[in-house]
């Protein structure tokens, strides 16, 4: 969605870009994450949402487990081929606009598990916006990634898929 540069809607004029930036400001400051946690990184993600490293200070408080109500999917933990089809299905169920964070080495490139059952990086089947390295990454790294997504929303607006 987003009010894009369509000639009939006024193009890249003053009105549409202001409304666009207001919409983006609203989107980035109230991201609703969907924690897709499978393994060890999920525990650090839980730690990032708890009282010490509070993720809700950045607006991402409402962690919805239903994909229909979320816009940021945080994939944390190893994704195996058995789970990959489920992950893709959940991604398809999320409404636009949506972003994906790949948290941890396993989602970035398979991590330490170079074996017969592990997907070597979730970008084999999902479009990823921000990658976080680490095994597991500290909760501060996850907060850094959410801030980068916020900057990305500012610059790019809603992605045109």
């Amino acid at each position, binding site marked *: 969605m987003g009010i894009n540069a369509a000639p009939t809607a006024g193009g890249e004029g003053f009105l549409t870009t202001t409304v666009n930036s207001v919409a983006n400001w609203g989107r980035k400051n109230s991201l609703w994450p969907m924690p*897709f*946690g*499978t*393994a*060890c990184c*999920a*525990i*650090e993600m*839980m*730690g990032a949402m*708890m*009282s*010490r490293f509070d993720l809700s200070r950045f607006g991402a408080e409402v962690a919805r*487990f239903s994909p229909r109500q979320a816009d940021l999917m945080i994939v944390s*933990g*190893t994704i*195996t081929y*058995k*789970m990959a089809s*489920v992950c893709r299905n*959940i991604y398809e169920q999320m409404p636009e606009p949506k972003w994906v964070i790949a948290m941890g080495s396993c989602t970035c490139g398979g991590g*330490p*598990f*170079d*074996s*017969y*059952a*592990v997907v070597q990086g979730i970008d084999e089947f999902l479009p990823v916006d921000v990658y976080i390295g680490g*095994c*597991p990454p*500290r909760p501060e790294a996850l907060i850094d990634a959410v801030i980068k997504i916020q900057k990305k929303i500012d610059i790019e607006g809603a992605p045109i898929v």
Partner: protein
Amino acid sequence: MERVEFIEEQSSDPNLRKESMILNMGPQHPSTHGVLRVVLYLDGEVVQEAVPYVGYLHRGIEKLCEDITYQQCLPYTDRMDYIASICNNIGFILSVEKLLGIEDEIPQRAKVTEVILSELGRIESHLVGIGTNAMDLGAMSAFLYCFKERERIYDILEIVCGARLTTSYPRVGGLPDELPDNFEEVIRNFIKIFPKTLNEVDKLLTRNKIFIERTRGVATITAEEAIGFGLTGPSLRGSGVPFDLRKSNPYLNYDHYDFEIPVASDGDAYSRFLCRFEEMRQSLKIIEQAINNLPDGPYIADLPDIVLPEKQKVYTQMESLIRHFVIVYNGFNTPPGEIYHGVENPKGELGYYIVSDGTGKPYRIHVRGPSFVNMQALPMMAKGRLVADVIAAIGSIDIVLGEIDR
């Protein structure tokens, strides 16, 4: 296929039919503690059959460990039961030390530190077990208090080994490095502060009418059925069987410590919760005794063929450099044979079955994960109960999928 009796009744009226409803608690679910899929066959709200499907986190750890050295297998063991990684590590190192036959040469300082860290891991794991169990049943505040204490334990683990969650700390022969100077102070501080939070969670949950209604009489299992399934840990002790590997087949000198094993008699989810709760208090008792008796001395055994030499010697002496290279590259040679060593993990008995062919790399490692065996009891616990009781049952068995799927 699966052995489920599907209800399909046709009444005399052609418009009325009754059949079982299949409900999928999919792999992505907030209450399944990971990627577990349970397919429920329902007759209204009553569960006829609950069929669990696992394997969504199978990473092939047992196969990966077959072409690396023993010390390189250590980080993989962290990632199985990722909630209390330090306990897995200690179990693995003890198994390799048993295979090599060097248990008597491990210095006392290393053994006492491993006991302290093991018990911290037990407290860590029970905090998550109780917190998530309570959160699934609706008591959200308990989860926040438990995680706050977990952060304190993370701080302790961070000053000892540098990592919060996946520690990979001990080495074959002892500890990798000297303990930090403020270790004793930090542990004593923890022993002073922690009981206050335990009392708070106690007040929130133990006599809470709603919690008792949701867990008393739910997911019951008798002692004989539990032993038949091979259950261990608080799931077994909640049914009245006083079996704990720390008392029955002691390791790390656990027979020198004075502690009790909590055993409950009803076998339901509430009994298991009470067992876990009391185990945390007993763990605190063990930590206190251990820190009062922490001896000075070396932190690693004096075994040139197995233990890496000191860094200063590696830089200056030729033999140390060669020894370092050989141990890291080839691994230390183990006698051919097979052993099994079990430790009392917070979730049950964690066992490592190692088959060695005489080289520095294991021929086969099999991990006996407690959650894998405990999970088999779920269909029996859920049968004939309501859907909400299935959630209470899964929470009370306290599973972690990394250990089930390996």
